[in-house]
Structures are given as C-alpha cells and as structure tokens.
C-alpha cells in the first residue's frame, strides 16, 4: 500500500486530490487533512464588502474531495520528513510515503505594530482577506460616506496581489454611484515603486488610478499604525492620515511549516520552481501558496501548477526524471469598476502584456484593457471554480503561458 497524504483542502489540495484520484492505482490510499470543513471561494472576499452575500463564498470542503479520499479534520502540528510522518494537533501520527503540502498562506495583522493589536482594528482599520474581515468591512463601508480612505498593501508577497487595486477601483465606483465621490479621498498605498511590479501592467494600472483620481503613495514601507492619531507611519518618516484604512496585512506560511523547519524566514517552503518538489526532501511536493516560487500567490497559479504536477508526481514515484516544467503561469482578472475588468496573463519570464485572450485577436477577452467581457468572465469564473476547476476537469486554457495574441511592449 502506498500512502499519499495531502495537507490542506483548499484550491491546490482539493485539485491535487481529484487529479491524483483519477490516475493512482487501487493500492494507493489518499488522505487529506484540514483543520476545518469550510472551503472558501477567496476571490469572492473582494465582492463581499460591496454586494456579494457572505454565505455564498463558503461550501463544505468534503463535497469537493474524491470519494476514495479519507478526510481528517484536525490541525497539523509538525511534519517529520525523516520519519515520513505528520503529527496532528491532538498527537496522532499519520505515516506517508509521499506528502503534498498545500497549506496556503495566512494574513498576519500581528506583524505590524498597531494593526491587529490596535484599538482601531475592525473599527477604522480593516482588511478583506478573511471572511470575517470582509463582512466587517462591508458594515464599515455602509457607514462611511466622507473622509480619507487609504487602500494599503503592507509588504509583498500577498495573495492575489491585484486584489487591493481592485478594491480601490470598486470603492471609487461605489462612491461615484452614490454621487458622493467628491467627499471621499482615496489613496492607494504600496511598498512597490508603482501600481504593480511589472512595467507594462504598472503603467496601465497606474494610468487607471490617475483616471479615477485615486492618489498613489509608492515606496511606502509601513512601520506601524498610530491608532491615537489615525495615521499610517512609514519607516522613512512619512505619515498618512486616515478615517478608514483598508489594509492587506503581511503574509506568511503556516506555523507548522516553520515549526517543522521546512520554511524560509516567511514560512514558505523552498521548492524547485519548475517542478514544485521540495529542495530538501524528495518525497515532498508543495502546491499553491505554501511554496516560495517567484510568481503570484493566486488560484490560477495553483491550477496551472497542479495540472503539470500530476505527471511529475507519477514520474517521481516511478523513479523517472520529471517530465513537466512549470513556467510560473498566472492569469488574473482585475476588476476595474464600472462593470469592467482587465485581464493579466504572465509567467516567470514574460510580464503581463496587451493583446487578446484566449484566442489571438478574437479574444473575446482583452489583456490589460478594461472590458465588459473580462468582468463577465470574472463572474462566470465563480461557477467554473466549483464545478470544473476543483473537481479536476480541464479548462480550455493551457497550463503553460502562450505568447499567441500578445503584443510585445515595443509595438505599443
């Protein structure tokens, strides 16, 4: 009997379980561990403060796992790679032959002084990276109709790095529609030197901020939040006053990763960025946000990487060289307000460019340009997520990024 153990039943863990359930022989057991039974459609958090019903983003994890998998609801305490065992919070030990770590990343408001421990937390200082936070922010927005709104990114990496930009665009639209946009001053505060990390997208998104009269405060490395004076304070001495602060806290990996000595200083597991195999332990693969690969922490990355992982896993088990090389492909819808969205498609080596997707010229979606089709694509994606992606069916989008339909920067 071969034992496959998967830690985490989120996007990556669930997809991996479903893909592997189809290809592993009957002499394999599949066990999936998660500390709770609630699978959250995290892209929905962005919409909860504006219009989406909070209950709609949560479903029972167990309904999305393959029938042959055993689900174990318990937190993980430690991984013991040398003994090939995982120790659960209650002390039980699970043996494995192969381990998939898909335990994601956690927002850590405790890492910025005055954030999670401040008097204004969930009062005038909010986040939308948890279900609880998104609901609290919805209530705060409902009662906020004038003043200074800061939309803030603490530090990189964060999950879905475009989400705070989307929030800024949606908030702008929210106030514009209520005809009180002139009463709300919106500033986008980022540790990066522009709206985004990659030049073409940064210019396009920066232009969009300007069009919507959203200020940009760049190169802002937050030191602390001054709760008494309601100011966001940077290491270089800059201070930004706020009436409502919507922040994205720093992110780290799970505590058990760090406690097991498997993580880097931020708790992410170092892996080969093309095969997702742990650099230190050959029987461990890491899927989704839990690894240290240099691309977005996003569901699309988990999706593309997991599809390529399946054949690599089978080869690793058979002792053969791994056939597939992941290119860091990410594909992100960026809500830009006014019923439109942009689409970014990129990988380790190619920055997001303009063009059409998935079919060159025809689209129907436009890369890096706001369009209605992109927005509708984002909304449809919610259904695809539950019905196609998680069960491990293929979407008509290649796992490797394609240059077809993309315009190199010099053509613009």
């Amino acid at each position: 009997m071969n034992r496959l153990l998967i830690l985490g039943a989120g996007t990556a863990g669930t997809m991996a379980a479903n893909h592997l359930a189809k290809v592993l022989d009957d002499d394999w057991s599949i066990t999936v561990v998660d500390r709770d039974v609630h699978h959250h459609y995290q892209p929905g958090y962005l919409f909860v403060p504006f219009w989406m019903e909070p209950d709609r983003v949560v479903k029972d994890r167990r309904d999305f796992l393959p029938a042959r998998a055993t689900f174990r609801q318990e937190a993980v305490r430690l991984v013991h790679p040398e003994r090939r065992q995982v120790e659960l919070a209650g002390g039980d030990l699970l043996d494995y032959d192969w381990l998939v770590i898909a335990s994601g990343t956690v927002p850590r408001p405790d890492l910025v002084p005055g954030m999670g421990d401040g008097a204004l937390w969930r009062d005038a200082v909010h986040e939308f990276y948890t279900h609880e936070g998104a609901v609290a922010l919805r209530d705060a927005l409902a009662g906020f109709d004038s003043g200074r709104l800061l939309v803030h990114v603490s530090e990189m990496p964060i999950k879905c790095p475009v989400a705070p930009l989307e929030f800024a665009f949606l908030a702008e639209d929210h106030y514009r529609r209520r005809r009180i946009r002139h009463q709300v001053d919106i500033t986008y505060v980022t540790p990066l030197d522009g709206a985004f990390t990659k030049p073409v997208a940064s210019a396009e998104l920066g232009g969009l901020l300007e069009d919507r009269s959203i200020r940009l405060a760049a190169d802002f490395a937050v030191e602390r939040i001054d709760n008494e004076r309601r100011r966001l304070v940077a290491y270089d001495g800059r201070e930004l006053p706020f009436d409502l602060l919507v922040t994205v806290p720093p992110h780290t990996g799970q505590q058990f990763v760090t406690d097991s000595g498997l993580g880097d200083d931020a708790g992410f597991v170092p892996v080969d960025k093309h095969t997702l195999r742990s650099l230190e332990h050959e029987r461990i693969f890491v899927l989704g946000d839990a690894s240290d690969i240099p691309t977005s922490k996003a569901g699309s990355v988990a999706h593309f990487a997991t599809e390529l992982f399946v054949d690599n896993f089978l080869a690793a088990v058979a002792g053969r060289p791994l056939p597939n090389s992941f290119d860091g492909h990410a594909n992100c819808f960026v809500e830009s307000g006014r019923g439109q969205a942009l689409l970014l498609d990129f990988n380790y080596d190619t920055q997001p460019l303009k063009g059409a997707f998935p079919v060159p010229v025809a689209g129907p979606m436009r890369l890096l340009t706001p369009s209605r089709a992109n927005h509708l694509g984002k909304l449809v994606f919610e259904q695809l997520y539950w019905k196609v992606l998680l069960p491990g069916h293929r979407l008509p989008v290649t796992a490797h990024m394609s240059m077809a339909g993309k315009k190199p920067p010099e053509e613009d």
Partner: protein
Amino acid sequence: MPTNTLNGRSFAVDEEGFLTDRDQWSEELATELAALIGIELDEEHLAPLRFMREDSARTGVTPTLRRMQTVGGFDIKTLFALYPGKPAKKMAWLAGLRKPVGCV
C-alpha cells in the same frame, strides 16, 4: 544587455542599472557607485551589503527588508537612516544584486 563603465570598470546591467552578473561586483565598485548617489560607504554601510550578498548566494534572490531584520539582525529604521528614501532598492543596486521584487 547594456554595459556600464565607471572609472575604468565595466559591468553588465539591466535596463534599470542593476548589475546582472554578481561576479562583476567588488567592494571598490560599490564604493564608487555609492558616491554617485551621495553616500560614503563606511563599515556600517557595508555590513548590510555583505549580508545581502551572502544571503542571496544561498537563496538566489535579493533579500527583503523583513528578511534583513529577521535573518540578518539589522534594524530597519537604521537601514532607512543609512540609505534614505528607498533602502531596499539602493542596497540591492550597491550590492550588485537584482532589484528586489516581492514577487508579482
């Protein structure tokens, strides 16, 4: 890739001026580069640069400010005082490393 020349030294850089070949770096080059942005490199300035080079040789990426603090033991406020404005970027440039990109 463009090549820069400074006081007779040639080194390959990317479009933003960051060295692309870490082996073309030396402390002398760093001292000359620092002079261009009005910084006189003393031991206190060099300590974080040395850490960054050692650390990135192991990890393959330019360390973040948080890593400078948690792993290197440097105080972030001090780094801002030594390299005013944009310490992470200035230090990476002077250390002959790629621009720190906190992923995408």
